[in-house]
């Protein structure tokens, strides 16, 4: 087997593995998140309520950052699989999973920092 094909095979296997492991983490995170959501939306959602729970709360911060990192692994690989299947010859589209990964990491971590600190001012 030529090295190019071989390293691609190893990469594919590792991506599959990473996506499944992150899926296991997300299974837990999403289930917990759904419960938190149903609890939180009762009687409307305000910033004060949200920040009241998350501000200074290390447990929430760690939980949500783990959540963000699991999404970072899981979603772009899923998107890449769909693109590879439906647009096999469009190599240009392969930038999209990277774009998604960047958005998830940057915006996600900013969101976690934001709700943990409750605002660092404008």
């Amino acid at each position, binding site marked *: *087997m030529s090295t190019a094909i*071989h390293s691609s*095979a*190893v990469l*594919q*296997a*590792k*991506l599959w*593995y990473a996506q499944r492991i992150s899926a296991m983490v997300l299974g837990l995170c999403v289930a917990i998140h759904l419960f938190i959501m149903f609890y939180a939306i009762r009687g409307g959602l305000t910033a004060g309520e949200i920040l009241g729970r998350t501000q200074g709360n290390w447990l929430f911060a760690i939980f949500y950052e783990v959540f963000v990192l699991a999404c970072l692994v899981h979603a772009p690989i899923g998107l890449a699989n769909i693109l590879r*299947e439906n647009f096999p010859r469009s190599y240009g589209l392969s930038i999209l999973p990277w774009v998604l990964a960047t958005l998830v990491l940057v915006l996600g971590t900013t969101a976690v920092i934001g709700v943990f600190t409750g605002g660092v001012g404008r």
Partner: protein
Amino acid sequence: MSTVNLKVKVWRGAEQGEFVEYLVPRNSNQTVLDVVTYIQRKLDPTLSYRFACRVGMCGSCAMTVNGVARWTCRTHVAKIVEGDSLEIAPLNNLPVIKDLATDMREFFNKWKGAVGFFKGEQTRHDDFAVVKPDSEERQLANAGIECIGCAVCYASCDVVASRTNYLGPAALNRAWTLTNDVRDTQQLDRLRAVAGDAGCHTCHTHGSCTERCPKQLEPTAGISGLKKLVARAAVRGTKWGKL
């Protein structure tokens, strides 16, 4: 005695062609193979189709009936007829030679490509290999070895349709059974053959293979087994080596 006729649309031609409608007398206890045979013998001798045992053992008569891949000898008209209409086409995902006969070469070549064949190192001068029937490997192999290569699963798979080099459920299922053959000596080659973008990880588990297999085999199970094994081989290595 009045005869009710079936309106049977049959694919005539090859990759280019059309559906031609025939009127076939309807009987009780009639299979789709009976219908195709009637057309060829009584209505149009130029119709090409395959069959052999006609009793559900050989898998030669597999065709697309009303959009679903089936063994025509084991498909009763009464079970699948839509009103009084039937549509019979060659198996999907395989090149058409003529009418209802497809070119099975790529199907069997992929079987080979997945190292879906046995190679051991013992000779007639050695003692018998001992494989306990209740061992885990033997039971896993048993679950998949009844495959007769009819290509119904191959013809039902989305991934085979969209990715021409994907090995397909039958080849991967066979590779899995051989992965569980403790006498086989090509395991690392086999794992390498079923890795990569034509291999097991390309399966996206929509399950048509398991749903349609006329022998109730479950390629999804074998492919899941391969996915784990190949991933382990890539990351940690297996008892046969690292990918």
